[in-house]
């Protein structure tokens, strides 16, 4: 038992409280932008039931970016993943080797209907259950610095722009 984490852009989600116009069983259109696939695959992360690896995953993900920025995410209990969606462990390419190997997942063979079903589950069972969060950029900088100190994150692999951004945060 654990959670599936999807990185999102919070501004597409937190304004969804007015669903009076949304047909029953359907979902607002905006959050679908956070489920754009590449080669029919969607990248997600596995989060332990006690969320003990949540911050480490967030920091790892942030190291794959070009700029220091906040992280918004939504969590779905893994047992509520739509049954026809396949999940595979695939090594990610962040600067945290353990996170890459242990917690990254790909959702594969996604079709249009499966994507909508997935987004709907994240909305109903994640967003609506307040399993949505944000780490602001300064906290992410702190997490990355801690990751480097603990030798979890390889600083040599950080992009130059990200490194500059992190250094500029007091």
């Amino acid at each position: 038992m654990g959670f599936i984490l999807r990185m999102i852009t919070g501004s597409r989600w937190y304004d969804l409280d007015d669903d009076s116009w949304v047909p029953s069983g359907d979902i607002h259109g905006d959050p679908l932008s956070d489920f754009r696939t590449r080669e029919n695959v969607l990248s997600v992360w596995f989060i332990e039931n006690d969320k003990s690896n949540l911050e480490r995953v967030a920091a790892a993900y942030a190291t794959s970016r070009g700029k220091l920025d906040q992280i918004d995410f939504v969590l779905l209990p893994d047992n509520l993943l739509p049954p026809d969606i396949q999940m595979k462990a695939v090594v990610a390419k962040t600067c945290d080797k353990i996170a890459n190997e242990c917690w990254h997942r790909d959702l594969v063979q996604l079709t249009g209907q499966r994507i909508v079903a997935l987004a709907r589950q994240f909305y109903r069972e994640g967003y609506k259950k307040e399993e949505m969060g944000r780490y602001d950029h300064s906290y992410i900088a702190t997490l990355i610095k801690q990751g480097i100190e603990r030798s979890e994150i390889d600083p040599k692999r950080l992009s130059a722009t990200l490194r500059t951004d992190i250094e500029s945060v007091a």
Partner: protein
Amino acid sequence: MSSHPSTLLDKTEKEAPLSELLPQSILKLLALFLYGQGKIYFQLPTATQFVLALDKSRATLLRSALANSHWSGSSNTKNPTDFLISDEFVSRDKTLKPTAETTNSSIKIVCSHTSSTELPIIWNLEPLNEIEILFETARGEVFEYGAESSFSKDLVSIVQKYGNVAILEIANLMIHGKVDLDVAHEALRWLGRVRDTDTHGFRLWLLKHCLSSSSAKVRDGAIQGLAFLGDLAGKPALAEAAQREKNIFLRTYMEKVVATLDQKKQWASS
């Protein structure tokens, strides 16, 4: 009265070159408002005063910006007390009768500081077109956290190029609902990230102003911008906005940013 820039200043009223009367940054603002309004009335009652009449929306913005920001413009300008703003409209020339609208929206700016810098190009009409086009063409662009967008790159470049003129025109577009909400959200985030001391005060003002927007997206962009700006002067506005925020996600985020700024204050004083 002609609206052509070169005819706006009556030679008989020209007691001193404008460049000696006004800081360069104010001259740039005049250029912006001149173009935005299509016409403008100058009066030079004394060597250090002038009155301008402009459309209500820009007058309100300029008044608010000057009153609520630390003026960190060019080195010619020392501090915000250089400017006194009033609703009074003084017309010495009876041929320049202001309309009811311009009377209501006029601003008198008294400059106690003078400059001897060269007369800048004040009739540059580029900023308005460029800024409007930038925001218009960004509609539909999908923005991602942690990555520069072509919009954000151009925005930063425009702010660095046009300074406070750009900030005021962006404010004018945003506050009057002329900007797509996703674009406004992205713009506010990046306005907080720009490293430019000249526009710091006006950017802070705009970000604080947008905390009161009716759009949650705009408010979120403003919070993120203030978080990036990292200026303790944004804290009271954030704390106040947190108290009235109904969206629990945004309220929690505002409180976190306030706490981060508090922490910063502690570090600074320790």
